[in-house]
């Protein structure tokens, strides 16, 4: 009898063991696929790249005093070492997806996807280097190590340039799959991707001290008009993030308050001329005036609504489906103006005027107002009187909310007219403006052995 039991049990065990394998084979993820099409990655990386411009711009706009906090002593206003874990994550998350897209596109012979991905990589990487400096890139993305070493920021800039060159080359090759509506930036227009690539080359060469010839060559191949602007328009289902801030502020969830610096640069206070763009970019007070808020000191006795200028829903930058601008024709023109300033003053002056006009056209400034603004002697001062400060000032206006302005501000040593240090400045800055973001806490905690030890006054290589 015992033998029978043993035999039975043996059989039962054998039966279970065989059937177990299939019974237990249920671990494939039912929620998330193991692979994604290049088209799906293109959709998300174009979207996220544009969103990253907002994420970074939402930090830097306080440093360059486009925006100011309604409350005194707010950390971004006062340039304290805020840990931007989320922005860091999103920059690397986008770059990871772009890396996957690049590899998949290459494997499929989809040269256009590969080229566009390389340009997006250059775009995000350059933006990240500009705010953080050294980054862990060459050992990154592939999970070969959990503690990737950092690359020197200057070397990363060389990598950005290589990516742009390779991307442009790939965009010129035959592709097995064509880009279409999965491209939220250009809906598959390859010539515009090429122009975007050259525009970015101009931008990064300008930071890193490229020669005028190099920069102007890139400019020539860059955007030809506002129609080429690199941007992602938002959706009813996913609203423009600046609109979101403006809408919240309208409901007294305060945010998007305009700095006094910006208002006074346009309302005739700092400069003799009132800029017609002011009313198209920011909201007026209840008295139909424009009043900014001083960075670092808050709104003082002002009520939470009606007495100060803020972002308001429905304007160019702040409508539900407004685009987030990644690079514009206007910016390119100011790059051209700065690059040719020393060598070709007439070209510089022409580009300066075209840069202003391009931004005004983008905002829809009436022709008459545009003409009279450009004719004002403080704006249309003539090529002999043009200064770099004029170029920087107009670029500052044209790149409203864009992170590139912080790069300009640092290159320009924050010499914008009337720009003062914020109130309640972080005492560790010893009375100076911030020069970089700190590495975020998450990265220090996870990769502390490699994270460079920096202060907020240590400069990015191109700022030294």
């Amino acid at each position, binding site marked *: 009898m015992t033998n029978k039991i043993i035999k039975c049990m043996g059989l039962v065990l054998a039966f279970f063991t065989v059937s177990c394998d299939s019974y237990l084979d249920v671990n494939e993820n039912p929620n998330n696929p193991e692979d994604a099409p290049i088209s799906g990655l293109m959709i998300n990386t174009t979207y996220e790249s544009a969103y990253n411009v907002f994420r970074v711009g939402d930090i830097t706009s306080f440093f360059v005093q486009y925006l100011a906090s309604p409350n005194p002593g707010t950390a971004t206003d006062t340039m304290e070492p805020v840990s931007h874990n989320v922005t860091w994550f999103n920059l690397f998350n986008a770059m990871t997806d772009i890396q996957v897209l690049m590899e998949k596109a290459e494997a499929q012979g989809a040269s256009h996807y590969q080229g566009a991905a390389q340009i997006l990589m250059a775009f995000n990487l350059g933006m990240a280097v500009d705010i953080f400096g050294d980054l862990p890139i060459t050992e990154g993305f592939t999970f070969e190590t959990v503690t990737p070493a950092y690359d020197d920021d200057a070397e990363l800039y060389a990598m950005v340039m290589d990516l742009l060159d390779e991307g442009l080359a790939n965009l010129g090759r035959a592709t097995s799959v064509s880009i279409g509506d999965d491209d939220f930036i250009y809906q598959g227009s390859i010539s515009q991707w090429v122009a975007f690539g050259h525009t970015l080359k101009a931008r990064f060469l300008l930071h890193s001290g490229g020669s005028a010839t190099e920069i102007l060559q890139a400019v020539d191949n860059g955007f030809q008009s506002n129609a080429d602007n690199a941007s992602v328009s938002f959706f009813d*289902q996913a609203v423009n993030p600046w609109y979101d801030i403006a809408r919240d502020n309208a409901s007294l969830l305060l945010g998007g308050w305009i700095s006094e610096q910006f208002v006074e640069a346009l309302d005739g206070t700092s400069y003799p001329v009132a800029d017609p763009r002011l009313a198209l970019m920011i909201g007026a007070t209840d008295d139909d005036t424009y009043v900014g808020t001083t960075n670092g000191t808050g709104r003082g006795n002002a009520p939470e609504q009606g007495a100060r200028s803020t972002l308001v829903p429905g304007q160019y930058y702040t409508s539900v489906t407004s685009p987030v601008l990644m690079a514009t024709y206007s910016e390119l023109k100011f790059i051209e103006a700065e690059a040719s300033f020393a060598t070709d003053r007439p070209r510089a002056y022409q580009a300066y005027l075209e840069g202003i006009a391009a931004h005004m056209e983008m905002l829809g400034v009436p022709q008459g107002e545009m003409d009279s603004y450009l004719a004002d002697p403080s704006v249309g001062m003539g090529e002999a009187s043009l200064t770099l400060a004029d170029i920087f000032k107009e670029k500052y206006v044209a790149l409203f909310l864009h992170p590139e302005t912080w790069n300009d501000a640092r290159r320009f040593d924050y010499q914008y007219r009337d720009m003062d240090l914020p109130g309640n400045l972080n005492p560790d800055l010893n009375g100076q403006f911030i020069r970089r973001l700190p590495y975020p806490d998450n990265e220090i905690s996870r990769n502390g052995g490699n994270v460079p030890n920096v202060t907020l006054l240590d400069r990015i290589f191109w700022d030294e």
Partner: protein
Amino acid sequence: MRNLFLTCVALFSVMAASGQTITGKVTDTSGTPLPGVSIVVDGTTRGTTTDFDGNYAIAATQGDLLQFSYLGMKTIEVSVGNQNTVNVAMEEDAEQLGEVVVTAFGIAQEKKSLGYAVQSIDAESITQTKQANLVSSLQGQVAGVQITNSGGAPGQSARIIIRGVNSLDPAADNQPLFVVDGVPIDNSTIESASSARGMSNRAADINPADVESMSVLKGAAATALYGVRAANGAVIITTKKGKAGKTTLSFNTSVGFEDLNHRPVMQKKYGQGFNGEYDGDSFWPSWGAPIEEVAKIIPGHKYENNWDKAFETGVQTDNTVSISGGNEKTTFYASLGRFDHKGIIPYSSWDRTSAKISGSVILSDKFNMGASVNFSNSGGNRVPHDSYLENMMYWAETRDVRDYIKEDGTMVSYGANTNPIYQARFSTYKDDVNRVIGNVNFNYSPWEWLTLSYRLGTDYYSDSSTEITPGPKGIDGEEPLSSTGYIEERRINSRDINSNFYLTLNNKIGNDLTSTLRLGSDVFERKYDRLTSTGVDFVIPEFYNLNNTNQIFTSQGKSIRRLVGFYGDLMLNYKEYLYLNLTGRNDLSSTLPKDNNSFFYPSVNLGYVFTDHFEMPKWFTFGKLRASWAQVGKDTDPHVLGATFAAPDRYPLGGQVGFTRNSSFGDPMLKPELTTSVEFGAQLALFDNRFDMDITYYKSNAKDQIIPVPVSDATGFSSYFTNAGEIENSGFELVLGAHIFRDGDFKWRASANLSMNNNEVVAIREGIEEIVVGSQFGYAGSTVTMKLIKGEAFGNIYGSTYQRYGSDPDALHLEGHLPIIIGANGFPEQNGGQRILGNAVPKWIGGLRNEFSYKNWDLSVMVDFRADVEQYNQFDNFFSAFGKTSYSLARNDFRVFDGVLADGSPNTQSVWLGQGMGPDGRDYGAGYWRNYYRTISENFVQDASFVKLRNITLGYNMPESFIARTPFNSLRISLAANNIILYTPWDGFDPESFSAGAGGNAIGFTGLGFPGTQSYFLTFNFGL
């Protein structure tokens, strides 16, 4: 191992069958069935034990003498006549130390025979605590078991940890398996995704009044039979069963009231504004001018006592009616319960309706079965306590927080502040859980030496929750809670199925050795499906439906986990004083990689009752030594392996769906975790059981920890699921009991337990310096982090410190003994690098219970404590940032900070603590409290020890003379009080509350959690 099984099976070779089969039921004198009673035909090797319902069957012939023996009961001998049924009622034997505990699979065992520590509490000890949550009712009662109520919200979760945490994964469930009548149930806590709401742990669905007893199986030895799911121990719940005899009806009703049990000390002098100046529109609630001075100018301006007004008196009512009865063949039990709880934060509520029915049938001499089904409906309105208290923080103390709503229904506000009561009322989160827990079981004994048992159980629940935050009403000048409003509808369906089949083989080898062998297999499956739809931006205000929103986002999360286990359990009993238990189990888990998904783990334990071996002095009543060594494996969550892609829920956009690679990567070579534990213990009883004692030492090492290691985002992932560490827990547990007065009208029984736990992160994966378990915000660099560092303890809280003179720059620990460095500006300097400031795992926990009775009166007093434990007091950090703490009264003083300058010379500089321009003509900016004090975590990681009067109950049983004139058979009235803090150094709300909820391991942070409460109850128990 297989060989061992075969050898064991071979032991059962000689089996004789003769004569007739005698069946029957063994009960105690009150009719309660006694499982595990050993029955032997005198002079033979034939023997059996009663099953779970006290039934037995044994072959015997006329004239045989049946011996019924059971620990704690007087042995009975019955001679077999011509009857086939022999029912026996056993009497308690005061001479013996008798205790039966229910162990794995609902098998009742004599505690005497166990080679490991186990502690059990009975129905009275459970219901007396007046806890609606079964987990909380264990508080202070069991050595080595730490129960922490995560807060005072109605229905809020309680966390149970046995002998320290075994899994370092911040999200791992370190809580024991809950088993109801042999069937494991789900005790997870699913927190609200968007805001802290104080959700329930699912064991709260069980009505404590239905529970007969709870046994806590602590070590791996005790739980080898349940496999991976019991790797943290098990709580074995036995529900009430019907008893043969008269049908009884009982009705219990109770009402309770509660209020805050502890609160921070706050300043009442300074009001709204900044720089010491009053400003009625200021965001700053307490940095303004003295309230008294402002009152001279503004009539009616006064301190509004908002912190009193913000909390109401909570009310609980609890009613249970139950009926039970049966005859020799069938028994039944049915109950209906209703619990209602309104919390101290306005609009917080939770209720539970429960119904239970169970029964058992003896179908024949060889076959019996039982079934039980428990239905419950629970849920309530979960207020957003975090934002409630945060908004209380910002609210000016001179504005009546109760004046919160205008006639048109919009919020009364100022300076863009949100009124907390308005938010609590309109920002709702309602959950509605329907749950069925049921099981059927069959026992078949073809021969008396063999029983086949099968148990099928299910735990099914649907959790339907709706979160609504209204948008603008469209009224000019209103301040809405959200600029768009949103509604989130979440539906969860979870189904557990547990199927367990086992054979029990009993044998007697010679006169001295008996054996019981169990062989079985069990299969577990959990299917879980969550669907969440969020609608944003209401088209028509105040009409809350997904169809009425402009944006809709949907996400789905499904999972399936399957486990198959094979096990064997051999118990050998030599002469009733030496007990050896060997177990082995092989688990297969669907969650692990195929090559690593099968794992075996054994255990062995030995119990030696030396008082039954040697002749001992008369006063030495009982003595046992025990030792055990055990291993247990642990798998991981389903669907974590490899890399996957996801479509974020904003898609489709313009008809396009984008994908992103998930930021979590699961090691394709993942192995199961393995915990190895050893335990030694002794159990003694002296002076005729007047004094008893149980002491246990344990040590466990859990290695190959499966942890989602946070990794640099630059790697392409943010978290890496891998085997990444080892944790060691060791400690001792002491249980003492004494019958101080046992005979006579006045009785006094005292029992105490004390536990100490040490733990250390022995290893973490090479190349990883630290693993962050969690962090909590603190202002301006005072954010604190719980992290794992090799060689340090689990539960350490890291944060910023004062700079200290002569400090070792590489030191991990706070060097509090060194002088603080004072900067050139006269204020202490901050060291931003994080150091260990405390540990959130209490080193010492314990409880003391005194039970007195005199005639019809009884009094029970239970005190528990925890010591050597710290917590991050986020409340204090906020209070100091907003000038609400009593110490911030020192805001217009001059102070010379105690410390040294950077060169080591003593600081002599006098500085002003206020804001703005000081009397000395220096601009002090935002002042000392904001610029310096609040930036240093060291100030806010505080001693969170306490001594609590956990429960005091005074009861009176109406005398017979009175009862005779009523329709009742019995009537008891009792008064009780709970959770009264007797001592704590903590300045704040109840230090027991923490923000993570029972599900998480980031326990060291108070957050802005729901404050703890003390409560008072009046209870009537009627018997019919």
